[in-house]
């Protein structure tokens, strides 16, 4: 029992590090690893991954907010879309066969990997015009980039596209308990053209709220098994704390280069799992 808990703890530390660097919440690692490596029922794996998402989010946000990489206003504004999406997802999850969920989810991930690949040489977004709504909502801001050793001012565009994508992110989070972070990073990176570190940190900030919106449902349904969720929560919190230190000193290009293979790998894994069910 202790050996299993330690293995899950180590896995979760890894998930926390990657999750906090990429803004993904670690569920993307936790759910497949728990089911594929440990043979844990998908129901409890999803329950544990919801816990991991919340742990990554809160653990990473402690640092990212203090260091002003998180854009709190963008996060709060977009949370309207993700929370409504999360409720939608949690309630339609019983109606859809998980086989199709894996395939759809995998294909969407594969698409996002390709979209990201097209931006691989870009360190910071260029020539971004502020959207009129972004001015009204005071979304543009700045942060200090430790890797570039300078202050980065940035504008915000594509508010409507980003908002719509955020709703989709919320629905997916509610459905599978994973993947919401990827779509949040995508929405901010591809639609709203934010610097990648801001997208990652703000995604991290938001995923906890979206997951919390569905976590209550999962907990009361008996999907959160304490012997699995406890080492996941502790490991991810440790990992997220380590990850925030690493991320700030990485170049955005490097983060993107970690992001793309993670996306591709997980998407293929999910598609295979969908077809083999």
């Amino acid at each position, binding site marked *: *029992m*202790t050996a299993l*808990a330690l293995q899950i703890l180590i896995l979760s530390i890894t998930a926390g590090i990657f999750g906090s660097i990429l803004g993904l919440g670690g569920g993307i690692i936790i759910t497949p690893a728990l089911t594929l490596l440990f043979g844990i029922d998908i129901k409890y794996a999803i329950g544990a991954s919801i*816990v991991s998402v*919340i*742990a990554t*989010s*809160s*653990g990473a*946000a*402690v*640092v990212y*907010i*203090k260091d*002003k990489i998180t854009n*709190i*206003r963008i996060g*709060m*504004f977009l*949370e*309207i879309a993700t*929370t*409504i999406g*999360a*409720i939608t997802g*949690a*309630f339609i999850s019983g109606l859809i066969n998980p086989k199709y969920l894996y395939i759809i989810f995998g294909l969407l991930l594969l698409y996002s990997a390709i979209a990201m690949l097209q931006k691989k040489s870009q360190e910071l977004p260029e020539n971004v015009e502020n959207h009129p709504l972004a001015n*009204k*909502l005071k979304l543009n801001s700045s942060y200090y980039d430790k890797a570039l050793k300078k202050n980065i001012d940035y504008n915000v565009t594509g508010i409507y596209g980003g908002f719509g994508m955020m709703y989709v992110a919320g629905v997916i989070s509610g459905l599978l308990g994973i993947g919401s972070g990827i779509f949040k990073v995508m929405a901010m990176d591809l639609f709203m053209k934010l610097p990648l570190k801001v997208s990652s940190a703000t995604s991290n900030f938001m995923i*906890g*709220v979206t*997951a*919390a*919106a*569905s*976590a*209550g*449902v*999962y*907990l*009361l*349904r*008996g999907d*959160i*098994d*304490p*012997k699995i*969720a*406890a*080492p996941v*929560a*502790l490991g991810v*919190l440790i990992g997220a704390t380590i990850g925030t230190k690493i991320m700030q000193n990485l170049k955005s290009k490097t983060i993107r280069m970690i992001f793309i293979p993670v996306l591709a790998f997980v998407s293929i894994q999910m598609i295979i799992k969908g077809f083999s069910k």
Partner: protein
Amino acid sequence: MDKENSKIDEMEIIISNFLRVGVLLSAIIVFVGLTMYLVTGISGYSGSYFPATLSEIFRGFIALKPYAIIMVGLIILILTPVFRVGVSILVFIREKDFLYVKITTLVFIILLISLILGKVE
């Protein structure tokens, strides 16, 4: 502009500190519960059963059952982002940023609805 920046600084410090307290509290409780379970091998419940209703978790927590202690820590973890939204509303009110008071209140209401809906189910 300087005044604006110092306001944002304050907001960031308050929210960051709030999250730190929530995370540490839940981590300590989960750690205590998990350690008790692993050391004694007793979950406080028969077989692989674990409590999933709030009253059962609360009763188990009072009786110091390891699984119930873990669940309390996890509930605190789950509630931290919800309360974080609540704290943000108060911070935006303090800053007299009423557009964001509205936005954040809306998010908070949606969150509460989702928690209530979960309970009904």
